[in-house]
C-alpha cells in the first residue's frame, strides 16, 4: 500500500512537471520517468510481462521517436511563444480537467467494489502465450497487420517530399 502511494506520487509528479515544461526536450525526458513509474505500477500489481513490455515499448521506443521528432522539428531555442489567448485557454482547460477529475473521483470513492480474492492472480508467460496464440490468435494477426501498415504509412508520410508535379 505504501509502495503504491510512493509510485503514484512519483508518477504524477513527473507527469505534472513534464507537461508544464516549456522546453520540449525536458518534457520528453521527464515523461520517460512517468512511463517508468507506470511500469513500476505494473510490477507492483504483479503483471511482470506487461511491465517489461511497457519498458521496452514506451521507455525504449516511443521516447526515442519523440526525441527524434523534437530534434527534427526544432528551429530555434525559444520555439513555443505563449500567445495572449493561451492563458484563457489554459484556465478553461484546467477547469474542465478539474471537473472531470472531480466527477471521476466522486464516482470512484462512492463505488463499493466486491472484495478482491485473497491472493493475486498468477499468470505465467507460458500461459499468456498459449492464450495469445490460442483464443486470441485472430486479434494477434490483426495487431500484426496494423503494425505493418503503420510502419509503411508512417514512412510514406514522413518521407513524402511534395513533388506534386512528379508523383513517382
Amino acid at each position: 500500500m505504501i509502495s503504491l502511494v510512493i509510485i503514484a506520487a512519483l508518477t504524477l509528479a513527473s507527469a505534472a512537471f513534464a507537461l508544464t515544461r516549456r522546453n520540449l526536450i525536458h518534457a520528453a525526458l521527464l515523461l520517460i520517468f512517468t512511463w517508468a513509474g507506470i511500469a513500476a505500477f505494473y510490477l507492483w500489481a504483479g503483471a511482470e510481462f506487461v511491465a517489461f513490455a511497457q519498458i521496452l515499448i514506451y521507455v525504449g521506443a516511443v521516447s526515442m521517436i519523440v526525441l527524434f521528432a523534437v530534434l527534427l522539428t526544432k528551429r530555434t531555442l525559444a520555439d513555443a511563444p505563449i500567445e495572449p489567448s493561451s492563458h484563457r485557454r489554459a484556465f478553461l482547460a484546467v477547469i474542465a480537467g478539474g471537473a472531470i477529475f472531480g466527477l471521476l473521483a466522486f464516482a470512484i470513492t462512492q463505488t463499493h467494489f466486491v472484495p478482491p480474492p485473497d491472493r493475486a492472480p498468477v499468470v505465467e508467460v507460458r500461459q499468456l502465450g498459449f492464450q495469445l496464440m490460442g483464443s486470441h490468435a485472430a486479434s494477434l494477426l490483426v495487431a500484426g497487420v496494423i503494425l505493418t501498415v503503420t510502419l509503411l504509412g508512417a514512412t510514406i508520410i514522413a518521407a513524402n517530399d511534395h513533388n506534386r508535379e512528379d508523383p513517382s
Partner: protein
Amino acid sequence: MTPLHLCLLLSAALFTLGLIAALTRSNSILVLLGVELMLNAANLNFIAFWRYGPSPAPATGMIFVLFAIAIAAAEAAVGLALVIAIYRHQKNIRLQEANRLKG
C-alpha cells in the same frame, strides 16, 4: 479506501493531466504526449481490475493491455510522422496554424 480505489484514483489523475496537456498546449508533440498519457491511464485501469476484480478468465486484462500498448505504439509512430509532415509543410508545428487540409 482499498488499493483498488487508489489505483483508480491514480489512473483518473493521470488521465486528467493528459487531458489538460492535450487541451492547453499548442505544440503538437506535447498534445500527442498528452494523448499517450491518457492511453496509459486507461491501461492502468485494466491492470487494476485484473488484479483486484473477480476475474473469470485469468489473463484477460493483461492481454487487453498488451494489445492496447501495440496500438498506442502504432499511434505514436503515425502521429509523429504527421508532425514531421506538418513541419515540412508549414515550417512549424503549432496546431493553430495547421488548419488546412490542402497538401
